[in-house]
C-alpha cells in the first residue's frame, strides 16, 4: 500500500517535529544557562568616561548579579541597573591611559529561580588617546577640526557650507554640539559625531538665536542661551535666557519660569545636578540645583567663567569690587554645602590683576587662573594653583604672548589653552602644557580648543 501525505499527516508531522525541536532547545538552554554580552567595542579601546553596559540573556536578580561584577584595576564608579536585564558600570573617575583593565563577571546563580551564569565573562580593554577639537575660521570656512597629539594631519569634522559659531564637546567624546546661523537670521543647534561629516540639525531655533551650548557631563541635556527674535526682523533680539534641551526626550524649555531671570555662559557642575549662569542685568550668578529644586544667587559683575570643584560643591568665579586701593578684580570662592563664601584672591591687591580665566581640575584640588602679570602688562599668564593653599606655579608666561580659556584633560593632567601673540598678525594658536613642560607646546593654529576624549 502506497503512503500518501494528506494535510493531517503533514501538519501532524511538522508539529511533532517542532515539538521535539522545542524540547531539545529547552534542554540545551537549561544546560547552557544565562549568558551575557557587553557594549565594549571589538578592539577593546574605549573613552575615558565610557559606561560599560552588560546585557543578560534574561531578567536577573540585581543583588546576585551585581555581586559578581568587578573591574580590575579598581576604579571609582557604581553599577546602575537600566532594566531587569541590563546593568552599566558608570565610572566616576576616568579610566587611566596606558592601563589594561579587565571587566569580570564570575559564574554563579544570577536569577531568583536559580538559573546560573555557567560561563564566566572576562573582557580586557584600554582607553583611547584624547583628541583636540577646535575651530578654524578664515575667509573660506568656519569649521570644526580635530587633531591628535601625535602630529598626525588634522581632519575636518564639518563641511564648508556650515559656518560654525560656537561648540561644546561631550565628556564621553562621542559627539559635539555646535551652533550655526540659519537662513532666517537665527542661530540653530547642530550635532556632529567624533567621526565627523555627519552633522545633523538638533534644534531649529527659527528666528531666535541659540548660542553657547554646554553639554551636561552625563550627556543627557544641553544648556544654552536663547535670545528671542524681535516682532519684526529689523527690531533687536531680546535678552538671553538659559534653556534646557533634553537629548533623550527632546523636551526644550526655559530653565527658569521667571522671565525676569536672564542668563548666558551656562556652566554645569561635574555631577550634572547643578547649573550656573550669569545674569548681566542684575550682575548676578544664578545657580540652580536641579535635583533639589533649590536656587542660589551670587554677586558677580564680570560675566567671566565659573569653575566647579570635582565634587560639585564648590565654585570659583570673579567679581569686580571697590576696595581701599580702588576697583579690584577678585576671585570668589563659594562652598555650597557649607553655605560659605569668601574672597580668595584680590582683596588686598596693590593693583588690579584682571583675574579672568578659571578652570578647576576635574579630579584634584588644583585650578588654573589667568591674570595680568604686571600693572602695565596687557598680556595674561596662566597660574596653576591649589585653591586651599593658594600656592602654585606659572605654566604659561612666554614673552609677547597672552593666554586664556584653559581646559583640563579628563585626568586633570594636561591643559589646553588659547594663546595669542600680542604683536604682528592676529593668529590664534592652540597651546598645550603638561607636567614636565618648561613652557607651553604650540599644537596648531585654531580657536576655542577643547578635549575630545
Amino acid at each position, binding site marked *: 500500500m502506497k503512503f500518501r*501525505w*494528506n*494535510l*493531517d*499527516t*503533514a*501538519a501532524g508531522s*511538522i*508539529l511533532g517535529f*517542532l*515539538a521535539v*525541536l*522545542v524540547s531539545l*532547545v*529547552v534542554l*540545551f*538552554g537549561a544546560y*547552557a544557562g544565562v*549568558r*551575557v*554580552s557587553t557594549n565594549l567595542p571589538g578592539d577593546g579601546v574605549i573613552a575615558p568616561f565610557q559606561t560599560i553596559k552588560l*546585557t*543578560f*540573556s*534574561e*531578567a536577573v536578580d540585581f543583588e546576585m548579579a551585581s555581586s559578581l561584577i568587578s573591574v580590575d584595576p579598581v576604579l571609582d564608579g557604581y553599577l546602575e541597573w*537600566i*532594566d*531587569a*536585564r*541590563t546593568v552599566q558600570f558608570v565610572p566616576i573617575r576616568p579610566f587611566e591611559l596606558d592601563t589594561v583593565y579587565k571587566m569580570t563577571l564570575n559564574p554563579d546563580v544570577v*536569577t531568583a*529561580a536559580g*538559573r546560573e551564569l555557567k560561563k564566566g565573562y572576562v573582557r580586557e580593554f584600554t582607553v583611547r588617546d584624547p583628541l583636540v577639537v577646535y575651530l578654524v575660521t578664515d575667509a573660506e570656512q568656519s569649521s570644526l577640526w580635530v587633531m591628535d597629539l601625535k602630529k598626525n594631519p588634522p581632519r575636518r569634522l564639518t563641511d564648508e557650507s556650515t559656518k560654525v559659531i560656537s561648540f561644546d564637546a561631550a565628556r564621553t567624546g562621542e559627539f559635539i554640539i555646535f551652533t550655526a546661523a540659519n537662513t532666517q537670521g537665527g542661530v540653530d543647534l547642530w550635532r556632529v559625531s567624533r567621526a565627523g561629516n555627519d552633522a545633523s540639525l538638533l534644534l531649529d531655533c527659527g528666528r531666535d538665536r541659540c548660542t553657547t551650548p554646554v553639554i551636561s557631563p552625563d550627556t543627557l541635556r544641553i544648556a544654552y542661551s536663547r535670545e528671542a527674535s524681535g516682532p519684526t526682523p529689523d527690531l533687536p533680539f531680546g535678552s538671553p535666557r538659559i534653556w534646557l534641551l533634553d537629548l533623550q526626550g527632546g523636551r526644550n524649555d526655559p530653565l527658569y519660569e521667571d522671565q525676569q531671570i536672564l542668563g548666558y555662559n551656562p556652566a554645569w557642575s561635574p555631577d550634572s545636578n547643578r547649573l550656573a549662569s550669569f545674569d548681566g542685568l542684575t550682575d548676578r550668578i544664578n545657580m540652580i540645583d536641579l535635583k533639589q529644586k533649590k536656587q542660589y544667587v551670587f554677586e558677580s559683575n564680570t560675566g567671566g567663567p565659573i569653575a566647579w570643584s570635582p565634587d560639585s560643591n564648590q565654585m570659583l568665579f570673579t567679581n569686580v569690587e571697590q576696595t581701599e586701593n580702588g576697583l579690584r578684580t577678585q576671585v570668589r570662592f563659594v562652598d555650597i554645602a557649607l553655605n560659605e563664601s569668601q574672597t580668595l584672591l584680590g582683596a588686598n591687591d596693590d593693583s588690579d590683576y584682571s583675574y579672568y580665566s578659571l578652570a578647576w581640575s576635574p579630579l584634584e584640588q588644583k585650578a588654573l587662573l589667568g591674570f595680568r602679570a604686571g600693572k602695565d602688562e596687557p598680556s595674561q599668564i596662566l597660574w596653576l594653583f591649589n585653591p586651599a593653599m593658594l600656592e602654585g606655579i606659572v605654566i604659561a608666561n612666554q614673552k609677547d604672548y597672552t593666554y586664556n580659556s584653559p581646559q583640563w584633560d579628563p585626568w586633570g593632567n594636561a591643559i589646553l589653552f588659547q594663546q595669542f601673540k600680542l604683536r604682528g598678525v592676529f593668529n590664534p594658536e592652540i597651546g598645550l602644557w603638561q607636567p614636565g613642560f618648561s613652557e607651553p607646546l604650540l599644537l596648531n593654529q585654531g580657536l576655542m580648543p577643547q578635549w575630545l576624549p
Partner: protein
Amino acid sequence: METATTASRLSRKLILLIALGILAIVAASMIPAGFFAWLWGRLNVFATVFLGIFVEAVPYLLLGTLASGLVEVFLDRDQMSRWISGRPVAAAVSGAFMGMIFPVCECGVVPLTRRLFHKGLPLSAGISFLLAAPVLNPIVILSTAAAFGWGQMLFWRMSLSLLIAIVTGLIFSVEKEAANVLRPALTHSHEHDHGHVEINDSFVEKIRKAFLITADEFFEMGRYLVMGSVLAAALQTFIPQSVLLTVGSGPVLSVLVMLGLAILLSICSTVDAFVALGFVGTFSFGSVLSFLVFGPMVDIKSVLMYLQVFKRRSVFYIVAIPFMMSLLSGLIFNYLMP
C-alpha cells in the same frame, strides 16, 4: 372555572416575580459595596480597549475588502493562474511576497485571501499570503524600522515571517482537495447577483460593482471583527497585562508570555512594533521577536475571521504551526543571543 385558572396562573407568576425580586435584593445586599464601582471602572476600561482595537482595525478591514472588491471585478481566474505558479514551492513563495503588492494588515488580509481563493489562488499561495502579508508589506516594514531601526529586529521579523508563511503554505500544499480546507461557500462558484461581473461591463460599472462587493464583505467580516474585538477587550480587561508580565521571566516563559500577549492584545501589525518597543528591556530579544512574528499571524479577531474562510481543522493548523515555529525561534534567540 376558566377565570379561576387564569387568576391562579397570574398569582403564580406574581409570586415568582416577587420571589425573584427578593432574591435579587438579597444577592445585591451580599455583594461588597465597592463591587459596582469596580465593575463600572472595568466597563470603562473595556469600552476604551474595545474602541482602541476596533477603531485601529476598521480602516484596514475596509482597505482589505476594497482590495477584495477590486480583485473580484478586475482579476479573472486565467490571470491568476498565469501569475501564480501551480508548483507548491513556487506558489508558497510567491504568495508570501504578494503582501508587497497588497499592503494589508491581518484584518484586511482575510477577506482578500478569501476572494483570491475564489479566483483560483492555490491553497499554498493563499496560506502563505495570509500569514506573510500582514508583515511583509511596505507599511509594516517602515513602522518596524521606525521603532527598531534598520537592524536585526527588522531583518529577523521579516525573515522569520517569510519562513513560517512558506512552511505553513507548503504543508497545506499536500492537500489536493480545497474542499477539505475551505468552508463550503468558498468552494462553490456562486456569487451575489449585484457582484456578478459581465465581460462587457464598463469601467464605471465595474467600479460600482467593486464597491458593492466591498460593502457586502465589509459588513460580513465586520461582524467578526466586532466579536473578536469584544473578546480581546474582555480578556484584556479581566486578565491585566501586568499579570502576564510578572509571570514572564526566564527564556521559555518570556516567549510564551509574549506569544500569549500577541493573541490577547490583538494589535494591528502596522503599529505593533511601537508596542513591542515598550517590552524591550523587560523581555529578551527572542521574546519580543516572537511577539512581532506571531502577533500579525494569529490573534483573537483574526482567528474568528479565519473561521469564516477555513474549516476548523485547518484553522487549528494555521494557528498551531506558526505558534510552534515562533516559539522555537524565540527560544533559539533567547539561548543564542543575549
